[in-house]
């Protein structure tokens, strides 16, 4: 079983602060995705990274895929209350293998 451990599990910060969420595994993934989930909804894709060392930016969000393709990070600059949600990383391997989700990071951004 491919395990994806996220840290921290919970994060409560003030608006305007920066934060980083980590996603770690002992397995190598051909691609890694980050999703955000709001209460009562399914997860929604934020980004997909496929190359070791790749960095992608989405407005205030910066995603990095580790060189060995075993880990990833999500950095949010100047968090806003609208960033509140459950952040999930998900890894997939080649050959049609399953899409495995991480343990999740619950982020709460307060005024």
């Amino acid at each position, binding site marked *: 079983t491919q395990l994806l451990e996220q840290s921290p599990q919970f994060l409560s910060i003030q608006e305007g602060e920066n934060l980083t969420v980590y996603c770690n595994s002992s397995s190598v993934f051909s691609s890694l*995705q980050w999703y955000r989930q709001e209460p009562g*909804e399914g997860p929604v894709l934020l980004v997909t990274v496929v190359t070791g060392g790749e960095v992608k930016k989405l407005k205030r969000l910066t995603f990095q895929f580790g060189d060995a393709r075993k880990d990833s990070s999500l950095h949010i600059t100047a968090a806003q209350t609208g960033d509140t949600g459950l952040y999930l990383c*998900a890894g997939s391997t080649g050959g049609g*293998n*399953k899409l495995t989700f991480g343990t999740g990071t619950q982020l709460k951004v307060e005024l």
Partner: protein
Amino acid sequence: EAGVAQSPRYKIIEKRQSVAFWCNPISGHATLYWYQQILGQGPKLLIQFQNNGVVDDSQLPKDRFSAERLKGVDSTLKIQPAKLEDSAVYLCASSVHPVGTEAFFGQGTRLTVV
């Protein structure tokens, strides 16, 4: 484009009863997933279909859970008999291909077993 449709949205049953969930994926999506999500945790894959064939069901409790995807389109997930620990949100997702492409999720079915 219509999204992934799931029904029902909510279900409350007594333990030892049976329940079924239905999923209609996005048209043309070959891959369909069923996930179980405990509140505040990441989704756990129960079963993955590629068209109407099973790609992975290693974490499906086969003594009580079953799933099928007839004609490679709609899918149903059944639990019989249900246990208290089955209380969770059951999410269905679909994607064009299984690897590296976006998985689109339905809103899920919240199951409460009492």
